[in-house]
């Protein structure tokens, strides 16, 4: 049933005669699958390597060019029970992966230096209380400097560059006090070493760098994993387009291989995978995914068409446009730009904490120095004590407090089917007090479904479903899906514009327009009771049945909405759809606040109005028309079926047919925010205990090292508690 796909876009040449292909594979979740796939694919002649990546759920294949057709691999995998599709990593994913491995490299260097310096520090610490010659101590200090200075210069670069960027924008972030702390500690230690003094803090500085890098790496790795997973999902959607390779020859190619200016054919029942303009043909289209409007409109030559549009009646030729100059899209892009700007004004918890933290600590250090000077200490001793204050307060725990919780919480969210686009989304989702849902595709499922299935005899349903497999019409496809039909009826013919027919056991069967099947009266009854439904009639001999097909609400939508309301959140529905449809959905779901026929501008206006009154809104939507609202809201989520643009601007994407991930996301985020605050308080308590010791001038390198690791461990352990919330929900 699947047309052959042109794989050439995904093939990579390795060496002179080897070809390489990456496949995203659905259903690999255990070691057994891994072994089974590798063993079976290696058996194909000419295959030189088949290797599964269990973390990313991907398969890398290499074979000698020539005899093997790449489509054979996909077929072989299908026989084994795995759906596979070629993929190519997106730019974002590649960048995230590169960043993760760069962080790991820096972490390796920092950890190596920390361990070796520890080896040199322990004798100094113990030597200071026993009998170590000053020359030996100096020698050890110099060795430490030799190891730590280059290692720190290399591994602390992420902090330095981030601090520099923040300072240049006249702001302060967490990395500013971290960088100041590191630089001062290293500079002072070097100076102390030169003047043969007793204390050097090389070990504390490099350990701090290693701890912070560990936190960042965890954070980055989580993000990389989410990206890889999202990349697989996109690949498994297996979006292809039918492209004209010359005037009258067509071929199915992956969407990724379509260039602007190409001409593609869209047949009835297909969704457009590209933006473009119509250059031939005429058709009714359903733009519900894009505008939320379920009523079909007509397109003809010159009309614009957007990715996600369902073509219903006739085939059309589309010229693919580069940047769509169409009015709807450019309007939405403009709204989007404004909305994204307003969101960037949000101050993250870590930034707010560091805004308080940096001045307090730096003033405390300055006061310490002045205090010791007044008390009669020498300039050198006063400066050393002041720097000790900076080192001991250096935000090791503070820098880990938030990323550690974020990592653990996003892991828990990942487990319950929520993929985060940004780490700070957790904080914003925890703060919301109002949830606004879009209707079409968000509260309802994106696919049509049969509504009166129980009124139709099982054998009729079954046969109608098998017959429906031969039609491309979306309503017929819904019948086939609902019946779970697998085996098409043989020798089915299509009556254009009417339906499909065939012969089963000597009796003619028809599926199509009610008038064609002589079932007008039954159809009118259904349409009268449910004006939102589409109908399709089935006739076998003289028996007639009519299927009512409509969008079904997500199975758990009503439960989730009442739970959200019980959690104290106001729930609202804004839809671009017509009033009767929205009213009916609101009634059945128990949503008291709703508005119909809302434009993208109205949605933003509503959200901004709520924001002015101090409300924090979580927007859940999927259409292109929701994209600006998603970006404008305090936090936002999209189902995985949403349009590309909506998925890209939403803070999180959720998988599956259920609406429950929305509830889970709020619950996990709230407990994660609680843990972040707790962690910040732990860091404050640690500082309250440690700072007086530092101000009193009692901090030795040993105390600094111990205090720093102790507080980091405490914060990490506390962060791990965020896992349990994931298990409970």
């Amino acid at each position: 049933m699947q047309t052959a796909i042109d794989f050439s876009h995904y093939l990579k040449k390795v060496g002179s005669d080897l070809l390489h292909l990456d496949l995203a594979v659905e259903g690999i979740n255990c070691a057994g699958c891994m072994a089974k796939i590798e063993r079976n694919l290696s058996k194909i002649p000419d295959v030189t390597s088949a290797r599964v990546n269990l973390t990313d759920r991907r398969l890398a294949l290499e074979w000698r060019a020539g005899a093997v057709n790449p489509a054979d691999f996909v077929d072989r995998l299908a026989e084994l029970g795995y759906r596979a599709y070629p993929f190519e990593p997106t730019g974002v994913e590649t960048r995230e992966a590169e960043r993760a491995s760069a962080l790991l490299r820096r972490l390796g260097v920092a950890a190596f230096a920390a361990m070796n310096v520890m080896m040199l520090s322990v004798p100094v610490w113990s030597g200071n209380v026993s009998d170590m010659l000053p020359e030996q101590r100096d020698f050890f200090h110099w060795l430490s400097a030799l190891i730590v200075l280059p290692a720190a210069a290399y591994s602390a670069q992420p902090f330095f560059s981030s601090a520099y960027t923040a300072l240049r924008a006249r702001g302060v972030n967490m990395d500013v006090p971290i960088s100041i702390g590191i630089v001062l500690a290293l500079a002072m230690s070097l100076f102390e070493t030169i003047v043969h003094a007793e204390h050097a803090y090389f070990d504390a500085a490099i350990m701090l760098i290693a701890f912070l890098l560990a936190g960042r790496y965890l954070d980055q790795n989580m993000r990389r994993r989410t990206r890889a997973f999202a990349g697989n999902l996109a690949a498994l959607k297996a979006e292809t387009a039918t492209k004209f390779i010359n005037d009258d020859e067509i071929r199915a190619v992956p969407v990724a291989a379509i260039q602007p200016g190409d001409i593609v054919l869209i047949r009835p029942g297909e969704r457009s995978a590209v933006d473009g303009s119509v250059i031939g043909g005429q058709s009714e289209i359903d733009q519900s995914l894009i505008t939320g409007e379920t009523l079909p409109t007509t397109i003809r030559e010159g009309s614009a068409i957007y990715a996600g549009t369902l073509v219903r009646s006739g085939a059309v030729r589309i010229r693919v446009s580069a940047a769509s100059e169409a009015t709807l899209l450019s309007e939405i892009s403009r709204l989007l730009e404004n909305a994204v700007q307003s969101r960037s004004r949000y101050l993250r918890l870590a930034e707010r904490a560091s805004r308080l933290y940096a001045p307090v600590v730096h003033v405390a250090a300055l006061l310490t120095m002045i205090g010791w000077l007044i008390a009669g200490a020498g300039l050198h001793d006063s400066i050393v004590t002041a720097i000790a204050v900076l080192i001991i307060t250096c935000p090791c725990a503070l820098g880990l407090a938030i990323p550690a919780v974020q990592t653990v919480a996003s892991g828990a969210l990942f487990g319950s089917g929520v993929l985060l686009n940004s780490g700070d989304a957790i904080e914003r989702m925890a703060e919301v007090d109002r949830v606004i849902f879009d209707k079409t595709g968000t509260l309802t499922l994106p696919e049509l479904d049969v509504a009166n299935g129980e009124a139709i005899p099982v054998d009729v349903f079954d046969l109608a479903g098998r017959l429906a497999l031969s039609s491309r019409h979306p309503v017929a496809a819904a019948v086939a899906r609902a019946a779970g039909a697998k085996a098409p009826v043989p020798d089915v013919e299509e009556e254009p514009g009417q339906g499909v027919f065939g012969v089963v056991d000597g009796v003619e069967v028809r599926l199509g327009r009610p008038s064609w099947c002589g079932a007008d009266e039954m159809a009118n009854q259904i349409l009268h009771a449910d004006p939102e439904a589409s109908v399709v009639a089935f006739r076998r001999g003289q028996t007639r049945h009519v299927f009512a097909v409509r969008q079904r609400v997500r199975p758990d939508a009503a439960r989730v909405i009442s739970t959200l309301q019980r959690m104290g959140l106001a729930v609202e529905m804004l839809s671009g759809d017509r009033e009767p449809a929205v009213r009916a959905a609101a009634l059945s779901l128990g949503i008291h606040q709703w508005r119909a026929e809302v434009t993208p501008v109205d949605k933003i206006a509503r959200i901004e109005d709520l924001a002015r009154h101090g409300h924090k809104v979580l927007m859940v939507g999927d259409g292109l028309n929701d994209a600006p609202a998603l970006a404008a809201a305090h936090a936002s989520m999209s189902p995985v079926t949403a349009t590309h643009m909506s998925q890209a601007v939403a803070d999180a994407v959720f998988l599956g047919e259920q609406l429950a991930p929305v509830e889970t996301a709020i619950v996990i985020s709230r407990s994660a925010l609680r843990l972040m605050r707790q962690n910040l308080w732990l860091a404050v308590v640690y500082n309250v205990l440690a700072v007086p010791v530092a101000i009193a001038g009692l901090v030795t390198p040993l105390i600094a090292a111990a205090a720093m690791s102790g507080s980091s461990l405490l914060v990490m352990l506390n962060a791990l508690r965020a896992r349990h919330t994931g298990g409970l929900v």
Partner: protein
Amino acid sequence: MEVLVYLVPLAITLGALGLAAFLWSLGNGQYDDLDGAAWRAIADDDPSEEASS
């Protein structure tokens, strides 16, 4: 204490070797699939019968 002349360079060389090994393994892609590597260690090498079923 003359022993330091040997021991310190030796210790640092060992550490540097460890670092070099880590960087090599990182570049070699050994951390790309931690989940899979964990299972590969206990997988049977010989192609068994159940594979063809």
